[in-house]
C-alpha cells in the first residue's frame, strides 16, 4: 500500500496539528461499555436540539432520570423501555462518564 508516501505540505501541517492533541492511552480512554448504546442519540458533546444533551450533566441528575424512567414515574416515549435494560452499576458508570464530558 503506497498511500502514505503521498504526503503534501498541507498534510504536514494537519499532521502537526493532530500530533499536538493530547493522545489518549488506548484501553484506558475507553468509555464504559454501556455508553455505546447511548451516544447515537446523546453524543458526548453537542447533539441535536430535539434530544436531551447529557455531556457535562451531573451524574446524580442522570442517575435520577434513569431511575424515574425505569420505575415509570417519569413519562417517556422510549427511554422507559430502554432504561429497564440497564443495571444500577451500569447506569452509575454511564452517568459518571457523561458528567466528565464537556
Amino acid at each position, binding site marked *: *500500500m*503506497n*498511500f*502514505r*508516501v*503521498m*504526503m*503534501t505540505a*498541507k*498534510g*504536514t501541517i*494537519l*499532521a*502537526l496539528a*493532530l*500530533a499536538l*492533541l493530547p*493522545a*489518549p492511552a*488506548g*484501553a484506558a*480512554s*475507553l*468509555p*464504559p*461499555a*454501556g455508553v*455505546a*448504546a*447511548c*451516544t*447515537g*442519540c*446523546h*453524543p458526548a458533546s453537542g*447533539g*441535536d436540539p*430535539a*434530544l436531551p444533551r447529557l455531556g457535562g450533566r451531573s451524574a446524580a441528575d442522570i442517575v435520577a432520570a434513569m431511575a424515574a424512567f425505569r420505575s415509570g414515574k417519569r413519562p417517556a*416515549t*422510549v427511554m422507559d*423501555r*430502554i*432504561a*429497564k*435494560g*440497564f443495571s444500577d452499576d*451500569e447506569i452509575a458508570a454511564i452517568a459518571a462518564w457523561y458528567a466528565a464530558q464537556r
Partner: protein
Amino acid sequence: MRVQKTRREVIRGAAAAAAVPALWPRAVMAQAAPRIVIVGGGFAGGSCARALRAADQKLAITLVESRSIYTAPPLSNGVLGGIRDLATQQFGYDKIAAAGITVAIATATAVDAQARSVTLSTGDKLTYDRLVLAPGIGLRWDALPGYSEAASAQLPHAWTADGAQIALLRRQIEAMEDGGLVAIVAPVNPARCPPGPYERASMIAHELKAKKPRSKVVVLDAKDSFTMQPLFQKAWQEFYPGILEWKSLSSGGNVAAIDVANKTIETDFDNYRFAVANVIPPQKAGRIAVLAGVADRTGWCPVDPVTFESPQQKNIHVIGDAALAGAMPKSAFAGSVEGKLCAAAIVRLLAGEPPAAPKLVSNCYSLVAPGYAISIAGVYHPVDGQYVEVEGSGGTSPLDAPPAFRAEEAKFADAWFRTTTAEIFG
C-alpha cells in the same frame, strides 16, 4: 448533493493524517502501530472506524468502501413518500478521511486469513492485525423465480446503500398513472430492517393517497407476521383504508414467479398486474463475508457476542447486518452500536486486556405518516454466547398512544438520524 472528492483526493487527505505516527517520539515508534482494516463504510463500519480513532490515535485505520457516496437506508422510505430529499440521505467520506482514517474507495475482492491481508479491486493489498467486516447484506438474486440483478433495473429493490435504486423507485411512483398498483414483495427473516417493508408501504400509500387516490399498494409477504404489526395495522386503518393491503404468506402473499416483461407477479393464489413493483429479495451476508470464510451455512456470520470476532476465522470481526448476533435485529441503530463495541473490544485485545461485557441497544423508528412514527426498542446482552433481550426491557410504542406521542417519535427518528450520521460522517 455535496461535491464528492475524487478517490485520489480522499486518499491524499487520509495520507496526511496517516503520517501522524512519523512525528511520534522514538519510543512510541519502536513498535509499529497496529493496523486495523474495516471493510464497509455504513453505520456499523463507519461507527467502528470513528470509535477506534477516538480511542487510540496511534492505530493505523483503513476504511474500505466501494461507493464514494453512501445513501443511508434509514428514513429513505420518506424519499419514496415524497417527504424527504434523497440528498439528505447521502454522505461522503471526506470528513472521515480528515479525521485520520485512510479511506480507500475500492471493493474488497479477497481475504487471506492466514497472511492477514485484504486484496482490493484497485490491486492494492492491505495487511492487518485485525480485520473488521461490515459489508451489510447481499441480495439472494436466485431466490425469486423471474427476478435477477438485471431485473432490478426495472423492478428496483431499493434495499441497499445504492441511491440510484431509491431514485429509480421514486421516479416510477411519480410517473405512474392514477389507478395503478404498487406491489411490494417482502422477504423472509432474517433480513435488514424488519419493519422497513411496512414503513415503505405506508410512505408509498401516503404519496398515492395525496396524488393518485385511485391507486393501491399491496404487500406480498413471505411471512405470516411482522414486527410492530398491530401498530402498523391500526395506523393503516386510520390513514390508508382501501389503499394499502397486506397479503400474508398463508393468505396468498408468497411469490411463485415474477414476470418482468408482462408486469405480473404470480402468487400461490392470484396474479397481480402491477404498475410499479418493488421486489425486496431474501438476503444473506455481503459477499466479502463468504470470501473471507466467516459466513456459515445460513449465509450469515456467527460472532462472539463480546468481541464480534468470527469463531470461524481468527482476527476477523463481523459487525452490522452481516452478523448473526442472536436476538439482535438488523438495524442501523444496532449496527452503529456494534461498531463502537467492536472498536472497544479491539482496543482492549490489542492492549492485552479482557474485553468488557457489552450491552447493546436497538431502537428502530418507522414513519407511518408525516409526523406519525412508531418504534420498537430492545436492550440485549450476551447469555451463553448469544445476545438475548434483557428481561423486562424493550418493546414497542403503546398501541393506544395519543397523536402527540407519535409526533414525538417522528421527531426523535429525525434527531437520531442527524446525530448518528453526524457522528459517523460529520
